[in-house]
């Protein structure tokens, strides 16, 4: 009998490949357990792509990478029907979206119709090509990256589409010590991925375990209070978070408790994951830019203002 791997072990295994960026690694595993997709935003060269590849390798699942470019077509993502001259009929060629872990690199570089094709697949977990509907493999997780600096020639994701991502992770620069470790590890050697740290069956088991994590009524009230607080009148906010954010907070808090090895969630779990869940679901207005407001700091103060149970 084999002992199932715990989610914490997967986080540790990814830590062997990714130096620092503990928050990013944990967020990827949170998304994996909660069954949601993750949007990573940060300047180039911060191991966003590497983190996604490391996760796919650690899971031993199918991994596909789609480089989003302005000339990409929806069929390049989901697949298309091709005429087979030898047999004289149309056959379906499935696109790269049919994998367990899909990396949508620089998602904002492709036009809206391509983004929509991917986001629809993310939501429905199936793709329709011609008259045939093809279910996507399970588990299925999309990790999309965005570069916030080079905005020229990009197509910003509308709020409604951003809402499809369970988590949005802001990837920051490593500390000086971490950068020293990166230099030591990657200057000489090739990137070494840890393979088989967990199986796809482990992921399915974690998902059903996460559903069993106890969420106390006080905590449910706290989650609702947090989301309602985002809708309070503010000079910087046009629209607050949707009820989808309420559900997402509950899913991810449970996943966080599972990673921590608990069978019950705590207010600490909710507060820790609140910025990840809320930051892309709040519509800020132009004053944020003109007044130079740090939206993450704004969300942080909003979260601390709501009394925890």
């Amino acid at each position, binding site marked *: 009998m084999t002992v199932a791997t715990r989610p914490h072990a997967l986080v540790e295994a990814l830590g062997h490949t990714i130096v620092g960026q503990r928050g990013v690694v944990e967020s990827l595993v949170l998304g994996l357990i909660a069954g949601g997709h993750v949007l990573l935003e940060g300047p180039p060269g911060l191991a966003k792509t590497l983190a996604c590849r490391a996760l796919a390798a650690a899971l031993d699942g199918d991994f596909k990478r789609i480089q989003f470019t302005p000339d990409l077509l929806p069929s390049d993502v989901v697949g298309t029907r091709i005429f087979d001259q030898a047999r004289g009929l149309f056959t379906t060629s499935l696109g790269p979206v049919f994998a367990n872990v899909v990396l949508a690199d620089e998602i904002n570089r492709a036009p809206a119709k391509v983004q929509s094709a991917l986001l629809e697949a993310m939501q429905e977990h199936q793709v329709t090509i011609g008259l045939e509907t093809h279910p996507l493999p399970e588990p299925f997780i999309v990790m999309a990256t965005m570069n916030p600096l080079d905005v020229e020639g990009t197509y910003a994701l509308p709020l409604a589409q951003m809402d499809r991502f369970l988590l949005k992770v802001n990837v920051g620069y490593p500390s000086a010590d971490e950068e020293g470790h990166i230099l030591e590890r990657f200057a000489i050697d090739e990137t070494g991925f840890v393979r088989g740290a967990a199986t796809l069956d482990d992921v399915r088991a974690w998902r059903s375990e996460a559903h069993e994590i*106890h969420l*106390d009524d*006080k*905590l449910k009230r706290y989650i609702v*209070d947090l989301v309602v607080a985002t809708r309070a009148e503010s000079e910087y906010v046009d629209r607050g978070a949707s009820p989808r954010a309420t559900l997402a907070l509950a899913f991810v808090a449970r996943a966080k408790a599972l990673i921590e090895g608990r*069978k*019950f*969630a*705590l*207010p*600490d779990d909710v*507060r820790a994951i609140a910025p990840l869940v809320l930051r892309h679901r709040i519509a800020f207005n132009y004053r944020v830019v003109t007044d130079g407001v740090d939206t993450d700091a704004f969300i942080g103060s909003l*979260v*601390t*203002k*709501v*009394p*925890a*149970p």
Partner: protein
Amino acid sequence: MAGKPARLPLKAGLAAAVGATAALLGAVAGAQTYPRLHVTSFTLGSDALRPVADRPFHLVVTIFVKERVRSLDTLVLPNLSAMELTGDERRIHSGPAGSNYTENITVVAHRSGAIHVESAYLDAIDARDGKPKRFYSNELDLVVAESTPTGPAFSFAQAVWWGLRASAFAVAAIAIAWFLIWVLKRIIMSSDIPPEIDPIDAAKPFRTPERVESEEQTLERLLSDMKRRRDRASLMCVREILWEMCGANEGATLSDVIEKAQEFRPGLTSSLRLTEKAAFVQDEFFQSALDEAIAALDAYLR
């Protein structure tokens, strides 16, 4: 009662005065602006669920609010006309995590049998949704037992036995009183500073002077209450005072409190973790989690 005819009008007067004050408070509460409160707990309890007739016991009203308040003027006590009111003590303990209001009402029931005490209530604007609300405590059912054996069954031998016991108690009480006076004299004589005596507030005959309770004493009191009641509400009271002891701010979570505890009260860390676990664990694991929390708190208080 029959042995003290001179005190009857005074007690009746006290009860009438308290009744009038309660009615006046109710009327004022209707007219004034309600406070904005986040009420987390509101209970009515008694230190004796089977009190004995003609013996005083206490009714305790406990309210926890997340705001720092100096008084709760819109609190209305239940009708206690079935009992004689002999005292009323209010305490309010405010900290960064909120305020703990305790009202200790001393009452005497003169007739045996069942007494039903209605809920106390508090009018306030609910800070959660900004709407005016009336918060109710629980109701209370008491069963008053007979005071002493009476009637033909009370034999001469029993009367002698009771007399001897009463005499022994009286002698012991006098000896203890003498000993205490002697100790007090020694303390006063050995100190140059005269002891400070709190002035008696003649305008508030029902209210005993406010006792200043240390945080540890409050914790001990709430812990013993939690051991007796073994429910989540009493656990939340203990958790509240623990967080207050660590200087938790509004909006703080366990990690903030532990960070502060490690600096100022490192011995409390384990108690904080275990009370948090008991506060949020599933109902079926609550009792075992509560035992762990009690063990940690006992270890800290030792």
